[in-house]
């Protein structure tokens, strides 16, 4: 019998909808796989066996009664990043401070998944409050990269990407503030998309940096990502920053791309994202990918985006500033961790001691950075200047998209680094998001699609494709065409079966 965990989401959906297999069987296969390998991967913080099986039974019941599937991926299992609220199911954001919190409401993304009949297997590990590039900042231990378990799976959404590479789920949801979907996708050989800012509702996405956060699809193929994208995207009146416009036709674009023809597409290579700091194997993989895009008929030109160089420092002022305010609510008064409530401490002391105990080092570092950047007397020099850089980066993108349809670069300068290698060097850690941050600052759409393995260490490399805001469909057309040309990759992931924790 076919190993159901090896199928793509679209393949699984076809079998379920034709009633060749049931959603319950597909769900059980993935739950079994999680039970077998997650001790070695630690992709999941919580597995909701009962909730998943109930959702699967509902889909099977409806199909048995002759009803049409409620969505193209109805019945397909999915791993949900633990930063999106799930009613009655733990939502920790990888933090001690929310260890026992049961949200009383579903995020809009969660609700849309449920309404589409998608089976939520559980919640995936992440850097605490999505702050990090390695998932080592989780309060619940690091997630390991299925390609090499001594290495990081990227971050902050390492759990979601690792669950795909470990065949624990065919689909996952990530969130991307500075690269937290794309960089994990790159280092795990999977696909990850940061939609246009406002394309997917942020309601119920526990905020790190409100003006940058965006939830998006993670999958093992571009088409699967497109199918998931269409389920979660669309206007939401509960999110004021949600765009009231039709969802770009991403599935149609992915199917068009699968035909392998990019004639008439203009691709711009970002000149600033190469050279020093870029691993040679990553650079070679990227150059090979660009050559393949040409072979597919695309016209390739080099484009300069001079202000992209300032993206990283601007990001490390804007994101911490917003986070210092967003995370102020974790004060022990209404929910979450509360320490020192022993009758001898004042409310102010309980707030302070709880925050001391509940937040990890990286979260504290960013809260302090942001508090400082917003302080009176420093605001203009830091937060104010960073906002100006943001405008310049948006202009760089606009100028570039007058010349080309999409921009490309490596997703991240290196392949997966070793666990522990950068924990004591935050600046080295921050460099992992060098190429992904500009799209967050400008709010446009971007994807990471695997460009094979680095010839020097045999680890996955990601090709980043960037498109203008609301032109997410361009990512899918180019990404799917490239994926066909590149050929299969995931059959080269080391076998995890039989591993022990």
């Amino acid at each position, binding site marked *: 019998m076919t190993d159901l965990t090896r199928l793509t989401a679209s393949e699984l959906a076809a079998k379920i909808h034709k009633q060749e297999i049931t959603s319950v069987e597909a769900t059980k296969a993935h739950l079994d796989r999680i039970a077998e390998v997650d001790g070695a991967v630690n992709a999941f913080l919580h597995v909701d066996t009962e909730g998943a099986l109930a959702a699967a039974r509902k889909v099977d019941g409806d199909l048995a009664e002759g009803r049409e599937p409620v969505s193209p991926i109805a019945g397909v299992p999915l791993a949900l990043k633990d930063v999106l609220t799930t009613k009655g199911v733990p*939502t920790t954001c990888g933090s001690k401070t929310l260890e026992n919190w049961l*949200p009383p*409401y579903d995020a809009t993304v969660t609700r849309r998944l449920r309404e589409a009949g998608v089976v939520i297997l559980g919640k995936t590990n992440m850097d605490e409050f999505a702050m990090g590039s390695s998932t080592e900042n989780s309060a619940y231990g690091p997630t390991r990269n299925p390609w090499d378990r001594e290495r990081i799976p990227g971050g902050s959404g390492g759990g979601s990407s690792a669950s795909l590479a470990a065949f624990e789920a065919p689909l996952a949801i990530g969130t991307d503030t500075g690269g937290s979907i794309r960089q994990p996708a790159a280092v795990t050989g999977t696909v990850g998309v940061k939609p246009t800012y406002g394309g997917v509702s942020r309601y119920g996405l*526990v*905020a790190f940096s409100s003006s940058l956060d965006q939830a998006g699809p993670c999958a093992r193929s571009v088409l699967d990502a497109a199918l998931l994208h269409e389920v979660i995207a669309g206007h939401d009146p509960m999110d004021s920053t949600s765009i009231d416009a039709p969802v770009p036709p991403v599935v149609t674009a992915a199917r068009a791309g699968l035909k392998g023809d990019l004639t008439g597409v203009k691709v711009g290579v970002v000149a600033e994202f190469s050279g020093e700091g870029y691993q040679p194997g990553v650079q070679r993989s990227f150059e090979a990918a660009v050559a393949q895009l040409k072979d597919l008929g695309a016209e390739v030109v080099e484009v300069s985006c001079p202000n992209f160089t300032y993206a990283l420092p601007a990001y490390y002022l804007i994101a911490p500033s917003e986070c210092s*305010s967003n995370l*102020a609510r974790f004060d022990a008064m*209404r929910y979450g961790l509360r320490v020192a409530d022993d009758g001898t401490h004042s409310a102010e002391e309980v*707030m302070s001691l709880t925050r001391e105990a509940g937040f990890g080092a990286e979260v504290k570092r960013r809260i302090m950075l942001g508090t400082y950047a917003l302080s009176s007397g420093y605001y203009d020099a830091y937060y104010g200047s960073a906002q100006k850089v943001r405008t310049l980066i948006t202009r760089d993108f606009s100028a570039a998209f007058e010349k080309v349809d999409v921009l490309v670069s490596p997703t991240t300068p290196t392949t997966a680094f070793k666990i522990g290698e950068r924990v004591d060097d935050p600046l080295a850690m921050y460099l992992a998001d060098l190429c992904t941050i500009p799209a967050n600052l400008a709010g446009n759409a971007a994807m990471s699609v695997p460009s094979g393995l680095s010839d020097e260490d045999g680890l996955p490399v990601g090709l980043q494709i960037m498109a203008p805001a609301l032109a997410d469909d361009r990512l899918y057309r180019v990404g799917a065409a490239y994926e066909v040309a590149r050929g299969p990759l995931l059959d080269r992931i080391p076998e995890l079966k039989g591993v022990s924790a």
Partner: protein
Amino acid sequence: MTAVVDLMDYAEVVERYDPVLGLEVHVELSTKTKMFCGCPNLFGGEPNTHVCPTCLGLPGALPVVNGRAVESAIRIGLALNCEIAEWCRFARKNYFYPDMPKNFQTSQYDEPIAFNGHLDVVLDDGEVVRVDIERAHMEEDTGKSLHVGGATGRIHGAEHSLLDYNRAGVPLIEIVTKPIVGMGERAPEVARAYVAALRDLLRAMDVSDVRMDQGSLRCDANVSLMPKGTSEFGTRTETKNVNSLRSVERAVRYEMTRQAAVLASGGTVTQETRHFQEADGSTSAGRTKETAEDYRYFPEPDLVPIAPSREWVEELRATIPELPWERRKRIQAEWNLTDEELRDLVNTGAADLVAATVDAGAEPGEARSWWVQYLTQQANTRDVELADLAITPVHVARVIELVKSGELTNKLAREVVQGVLAGEGEPDEVVANRGLKVVSDDSALLTAVDEALAAQPDVAEKIRGGKVQAAGAIVGAVMKATKGQADAKRVRELILERVGA
């Protein structure tokens, strides 16, 4: 709490110093729902029942602006002769306090929706003072804390605190004056008159309950003194939450006498917030401003900017009702009142009520007589303000109409008004339920007349003999028999008819 405070005699204060006032008034809007969520905006209620993820600041929840609140803010701005911003934003005001769910207040900072206005205030003697308005901006209210134990009722020293978030997120408009200078000894009176004028204005616009006793209108009074002949403002204090008109006047006067004593003895005024003591009219020190927090304001990233179109602003301008002072000018002319008569009307709080009663169809004389005499008595007996009586101008107009049409006598009308004041419903309901209608059915009256004539044949004889004034005794008997519900004039006519006089 009973430390002796030096106060300077008021006459001496105004001889030696010029007071400078700044008034900040917070007004709770009477919208159906809260500022950023769909929870009901109602005073009171069981604690923590008017709450949802957004107004509790739960992780992931997002705000959506209440369009009605923006509309009210613009209308208030227009009524205060302000410019309305073509583009403005919300900002986060960051500080920690347990009754503030997010530990930041969503407010407006350097981009208020309305600015540069003025309000003309009429003092008791008819003098008009123009108070310049700096700005009016939108924000959300906090929850309420109840600090149990401890001496002061404040958070420091309390044994424990109870939190009620029903008020959290209620829409507020904060109206800030420019410094009010040159008022001399009338400064306390100007402060009261300004708040009273604002209250009357907002009530006429029907945008707020403006109940100072319930906190839907709250005033913070900034007071400083400068020695006569100088022009540099002194150090100010801010007396918080002064919750009646009388208290506004007392608080300003007290601060003037206290600060003058400090300055005269060579001391310096401490910049601080102070609390008003209702019992003795004094103020006491709160936290000092030197240690006050840096609010780290920055634009609210969860909300989009507000850009009211000029067409919309003009539409709203057309909805501003006749303003209270304009109406007063008009009624003085129309009713031919002396300045003194008008002032009496205004001082009892009756002017607007009389005008509204006239608008509802009553004759000015009748309307004035009801409000100034009978209802003012009723308000005094109940120790409430005239406007807070449970009867509306529309009710009073209806009662006047019923008297005019002969359906009620004056005595019955007062009974109906008592019923309305007792909460028995609209005048017509009270008439029906209490059975107070004048007996106008002649046949019923004739029976009573015949009975009364038969009972007093000697009187009947006198009338028949031409002593028409003797009919009074029969009228009295009929009125007694009909429990006063007969129209005495008609009874007299029937008696004369019956005896053939």
